[in-house]
């Protein structure tokens, strides 16, 4: 036991100096690889025109300016469809899709995790398998089905599929299984509460970290949606699509384009910063057994 020493309130052993140095070195290199491009995005958005077109390009800005952001907003106000419409579209589909997903996924996850019924395990296995199916792969047949349901070119085409995501159900079910104890549910059932009531009053408040995780995944996905094959009308298109159109304007719009990227990326990143600890807690039960 002499070899053991305590570091950072955790028992570890035989950490060689060389190993520590090596790990730190690799971590710094990888960190730089991840961080520098992100940093460059922000720096670009603050550069005035003459610094944007400087040879060689600089990784800092001498005269930071907010002009690019102003340009972006004036470009926005010049669009055919009022820009507020694009913002509304994205916010509306993100919110409606996310809350529907939270509700339907939790409801199904509760039944699969906490009620034993014929077919329950099979359904979950199906959902787990479907984690492998990438969206683009199912897109063509989805289009056919959506035209059959007459959902093409409506908000429903974006919102309804978002209500039932495999990852959402998977994470919620795993988390419920590990953090909602059967004893609590049993006592509620014995008190005469219906299964739905037990779900809503007892189980749901116990899985708040998983709500947040689900909200964030769903929201990010919908927020970052660009042009969709299901939507043709200009009035229904997303903010991301509109911004891409603006920024596709070549050299003149390089500054506004950098500003747009910053605006769009800030939202998911801020949401993640606020909810990081909850997401990590949820991920603790994300493992696949067997």
């Amino acid at each position: 036991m002499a070899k053991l020493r305590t570091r950072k309130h955790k028992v570890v052993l035989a950490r060689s100096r060389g190993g520590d140095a090596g790990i730190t070195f690799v971590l710094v290199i990888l960190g730089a690889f991840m961080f520098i491009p992100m940093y460059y995005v922000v720096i670009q958005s603050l550069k005035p025109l003459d610094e944007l077109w400087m040879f060689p390009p600089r990784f800092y800005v001498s005269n930071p300016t907010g002009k690019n952001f102003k340009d972006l907003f004036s470009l926005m106000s010049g669009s055919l469809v009022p820009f507020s419409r694009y913002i509304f579209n994205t916010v509306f589909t993100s919110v409606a899709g996310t809350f529907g997903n939270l509700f339907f996924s939790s409801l199904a996850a509760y039944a699969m995790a906490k009620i034993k019924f014929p077919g329950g395990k099979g359904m979950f296995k199906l959902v787990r398998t479907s984690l492998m199916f990438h969206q683009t792969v199912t897109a063509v047949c989805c289009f056919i089905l959506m035209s059959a349901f007459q959902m093409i070119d409506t908000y429903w085409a974006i919102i309804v599929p978002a209500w039932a995501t495999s990852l959402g159900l998977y994470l919620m079910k795993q988390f419920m299984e590990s953090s909602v104890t059967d004893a609590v549910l049993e006592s509620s059932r014995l008190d005469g509460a219906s299964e739905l009531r037990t779900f809503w009053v007892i189980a749901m408040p116990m899985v708040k970290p998983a709500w947040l995780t689900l909200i964030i995944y769903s929201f990010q996905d919908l927020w970052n949606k660009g042009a969709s094959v299901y939507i043709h009308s200009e009035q229904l298109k997303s903010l991301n699509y509109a911004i891409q159109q603006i920024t596709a304007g070549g050299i003149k719009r390089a500054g506004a384009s950098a500003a747009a990227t910053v605006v769009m990326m800030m939202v998911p990143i801020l949401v993640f910063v606020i909810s990081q600890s909850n997401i990590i807690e949820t991920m603790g039960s994300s493992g696949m057994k067997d």
Partner: protein
Amino acid sequence: MSSKTAQKKAVARKDMSRAQWTWKEMKRNWVAYVMVAPFMLIFSCFTVLPVLLSIVISFTDFNLLQMPNIVGLDNYIRLFLDDDIFITAAKNTFIFAAIVGPASYFMSLMVAWFINELSPKIRAVVTLIFYAPSIAGQAYLVWATLFSSDAYGWANAWLMKLGVITKEIAWFETKEYVMPLCIVVALWTSLGTSFLSFIAGLQGIDKAQYEAGAVDGIKNRWQELWYVTLPNMKPQLMFGAVMSITGSFGFGGIVTALCGFPSVDYAAHTIVHHLEDYGGQRFEIGYSSTIAVVLFVIMIGANALVKKVLSKVGS
């Protein structure tokens, strides 16, 4: 009381056929079906049904306009024997997945492991730095700026300044550079869900396991990783693998955004691009479904393979 009912049920079950018992259980748990119904209905419509439908359509010549005819295996024969671009796409996809899949997986695992011993506050900051690119929407377009085709791109500027090249390189329009660059960008955006899952898995390992390991004669951190840490987070490793595989085979949008569609000489053309080409632009739905089915089979095969490899961890 609950044990008593369980006993009663166990006796009752013997007297019934399997079907009868299942029916009784289904009636008893009808609420559960009500609860899963909305999710399963939507999930079936937009995830399961499209997959099944692709399998059926892949045997037809459906093109959205005419009544489909059954053509048997013609689409599959055409795909493998008569479509050079598909072979290129398949080759690119395999190269891509074989590099990006494992590399992003090990990078996620290594970084998660490295930062595991940091204090919680620093860990949160480092997590953000590594995770941010994967959620930052269009931020990957910055690579098009860094490697732009004029002298204002960072790569060209410095190579010219240092005298390595005399003329600008059009990075994303040159056959030799397209694939490596896309791989780099893919890696940059790839520390996503599996990374978070690994961090959580490492946090969740019982500390007593490490002490027990030390007593059992584990000498250094690498042995500790192999014999204690990894076996304890196997479920997360499996989940992470599924997410990495899906990500690396389904990767296409970023390539289109950076290199255009189709990419120069099809140098970064993947199966997903081929699928979009036939499904979204030429409306050869039958043929594109064939491509989709082939991609499913490849993904399922890759998952089975990874499962086998992961069962060897810690032994």
